């Protein structure tokens, strides 16, 4: 009986044991599931999302820069797809073979096989082999599907006009920042705003459209900017400047043409220049070629200041255009002697026109004295200072769309030592500094009737998606820099003085129907150790050419020329002359009368 009972109980016990075992197993599974899904919920959610949820930046393409070409608009800075070739060394299977294939596919790689093999030994997942590869080469490399070799698209700026207007344009460096020129000044607008894509993706990285959490923010492409520059005129200016500097025996110089009635710059260049597409090849010691000296390098502008002093004296009513005075050919101010060049004619009665025609330093000093009631005093200094800073805007940036614009300097009329001689010097352009652009903008106000227009390089802007360009209107910073009557009288004096001197500047004849006038400036080059060099001069020439309804201001600057004579006349003068004639002959400047 006992054995029978035992035999009957055993299967039940085994079954129960199985139940218990399964129950325990289920509990174990449940506990594990609870641990994974509840306690470790955040960890695994994050891990899953990191595999599926991708965040991409959608790059914004940099804005195109355009310029005028007569009546057309042409692009002068565009974007070009280029590629950076890089290695991911841990994934390279056969280093020797990979190096051979790379060199065979891209023979232009400026690298030896040994160097590639050395790069492959680097402890990095991103080793750059070459930059700026063309799209064709990139396609060839992609087709090879080499393991451990990658390509990254890296758009570059392209310059279809070569090195034309290089310093005006600036360039974009390897960090994708605009530096120098328009690229720097308008970096924010040209750069645009990258978009963003946050989405659940499949294994290939393609966003799954059904996910409601996907976020797509479209990029805002960089603005398209139309410059005031005319490429034909710019080319002429650069050719004329190159010839002019060669003729003058100078290595550095610049010139610009500005519309006196809008402040728009039509052409602007410095030499030596560079090719912005190859900015990285410019040696460190030559990096000054990147700078637009007409905007960024102030200088003592010399005698081209005299028309400004004359205009201030006429405007303030202390002289009129027919005034004459006795010129002693020298003044002593604060113990220093101010005198004239030998060709000035010496002591005598002089007219206002003589001051400009003979470039009399004593004449400019005499004008300053008249502003002080017959002597250089605080009243004279303060009056002249207000003209320089508030009417001509010397000593402050013009606001032109250029990187590294300089403000120049104007001495205080009340603080410091030797103020009278300092101010006497400023009356003929020494002891203060201004950029050629500042001088040109102020000169435009003198010849256009008195309105100071902010100089500008941007004519129109179109934002992403806009088909029409938004025109930038001229900005009048000071509607009455000088009175219209003072402007008219100053113009007459400049025209008359030029009519007597134009042959000195290489001009054969004056053109019927056009007003052409200008003033030379020859200033000693400051010695960094103090004082001035006795035998080194900078030549400048500022003037205007006017047709039926357009007036253009032209300024030329020639640094330290070796040609004989006064630098303003013999070095800078011919550049002005050629530019003025180019405006008449090539730029459709209509004459005032037929």
């Amino acid at each position, binding site marked *: 009986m006992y054995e029978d009972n035992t035999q009957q109980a055993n299967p039940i016990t085994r079954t129960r044991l199985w139940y218990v075992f399964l129950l325990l197993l289920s509990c174990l599974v449940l506990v594990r599931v609870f641990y994974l899904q509840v306690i470790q919920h955040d960890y695994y959610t994050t891990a899953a999302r990191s595999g599926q949820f991708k965040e991409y930046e959608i790059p914004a393409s940099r804005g195109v820069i355009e310029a005028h*070409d007569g009546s057309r608009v*042409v*692009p*002068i800075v*565009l*974007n*070009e*797809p280029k590629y950076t070739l890089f290695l991911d060394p841990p994934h390279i299977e056969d280093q020797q073979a990979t190096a051979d294939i790379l060199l065979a596919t891209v023979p232009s790689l400026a690298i030896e096989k040994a160097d590639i093999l050395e790069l492959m030994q680097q402890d990095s997942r991103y080793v750059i082999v070459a930059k700026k590869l063309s*799209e064709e080469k990139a396609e060839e490399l992609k087709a090879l599907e080499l393991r451990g070799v990658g390509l990254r698209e890296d758009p570059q700026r*392209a310059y*279809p*006009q*070569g090195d*034309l207007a290089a310093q005006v344009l600036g360039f974009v460096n390897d960090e994708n920042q605009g530096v120098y020129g328009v690229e720097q000044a308008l970096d924010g607008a040209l750069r645009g705003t990258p978009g963003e894509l946050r989405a659940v993706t*499949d294994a290939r990285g*393609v*966003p*799954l*459209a*059904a996910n409601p959490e996907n976020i797509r923010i479209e990029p805002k492409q960089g603005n398209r900017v139309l410059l005031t520059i005319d*490429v*034909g005129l710019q*080319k002429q200016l650069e050719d004329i400047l190159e010839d002019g500097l060669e003729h003058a025996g100078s290595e550095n110089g610049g010139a610009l043409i500005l519309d006196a009635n809008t402040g728009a710059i039509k052409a602007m260049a410095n030499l030596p220049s560079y090719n912005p597409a190859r900015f990285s090849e410019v040696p460190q010691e030559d990096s000054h070629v990147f700078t637009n000296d007409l905007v960024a390098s102030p200088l003592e502008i010399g005698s081209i200041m005299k028309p400004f002093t004359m205009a201030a004296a006429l405007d303030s009513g202390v002289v009129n255009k027919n005034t004459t005075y006795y010129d002693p050919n020298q003044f002593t101010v604060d113990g220093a002697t101010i005198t004239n060049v030998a060709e000035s004619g010496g002591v005598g009665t002089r007219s206002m026109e003589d001051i400009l025609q003979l470039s009399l330093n004593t004449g400019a000093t005499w004008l300053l004295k008249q502003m002080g009631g017959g002597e250089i005093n605080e009243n004279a200094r303060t009056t002249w200072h207000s003209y320089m800073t508030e009417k001509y805007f010397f000593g402050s940036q013009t606001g032109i769309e250029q990187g590294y614009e300089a403000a120049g300097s104007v001495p205080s009329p009340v603080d410091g030592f030797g103020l009278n001689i300092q101010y006497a010097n400023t009356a003929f352009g020494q002891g203060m500094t201004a950029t050629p652009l500042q001088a040109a903008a102020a000169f435009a106000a003198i010849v256009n009737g008195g309105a100071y227009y902010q100089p500008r390089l941007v004519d129109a802007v179109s934002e992403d998606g806009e088909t029409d360009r938004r025109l930038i209107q001229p900005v009048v910073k000071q509607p009455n820099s000088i009175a219209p009557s003072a402007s008219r009288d100053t113009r007459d004096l400049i025209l008359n003085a030029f009519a007597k001197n134009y042959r000195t500047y290489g001009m054969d004849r004056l*053109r019927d129907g056009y007003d052409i006038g200008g003033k030379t400036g020859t200033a000693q080059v400051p010695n960094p150790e103090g004082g001035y060099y006795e035998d080194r001069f900078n030549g400048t020439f500022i003037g205007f050419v006017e047709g039926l309804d357009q007036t253009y201001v032209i300024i030329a600057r020639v640094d330290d020329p070796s040609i004989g004579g006064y630098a303003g006349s013999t070095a800078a003068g011919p550049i002005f002359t050629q530019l003025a004639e180019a405006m*008449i*002959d090539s730029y459709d400047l209509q004459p005032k009368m*037929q």
Partner: protein
Amino acid sequence: MTYSSSLAVGRQRAMGRNKNVTSFRAQARTIGPVSNTVIIVVLVCLLGLLYLSQVTKTNAYGFEVDNLETQQSQLISEYQELELNAARLQSVDRVQNSGVAQGLVPAQPESIVQ
């Protein structure tokens, strides 16, 4: 006897006559618990299939959108390349150095007829 009371007497008589008649009521058809479960499961499956088909379809559109975007960027790239080539071909330097330009001579202002 009023008219209404005569009608009531008539109804009582009639009921008395039909005393043995069985009253049949239409019995409502019901679905058992198993059928209910099966139907619910089928419906849920159908809805699930519908949802899946919609999601799949939407994701398929996603691939289509992705392809179109790729095409769009390729076309933009081609356009940029063409724009660049056109600008290079029309550059001032190229025009100046062209055969036609080399054959030109500078015009004298006197020879221009306005």
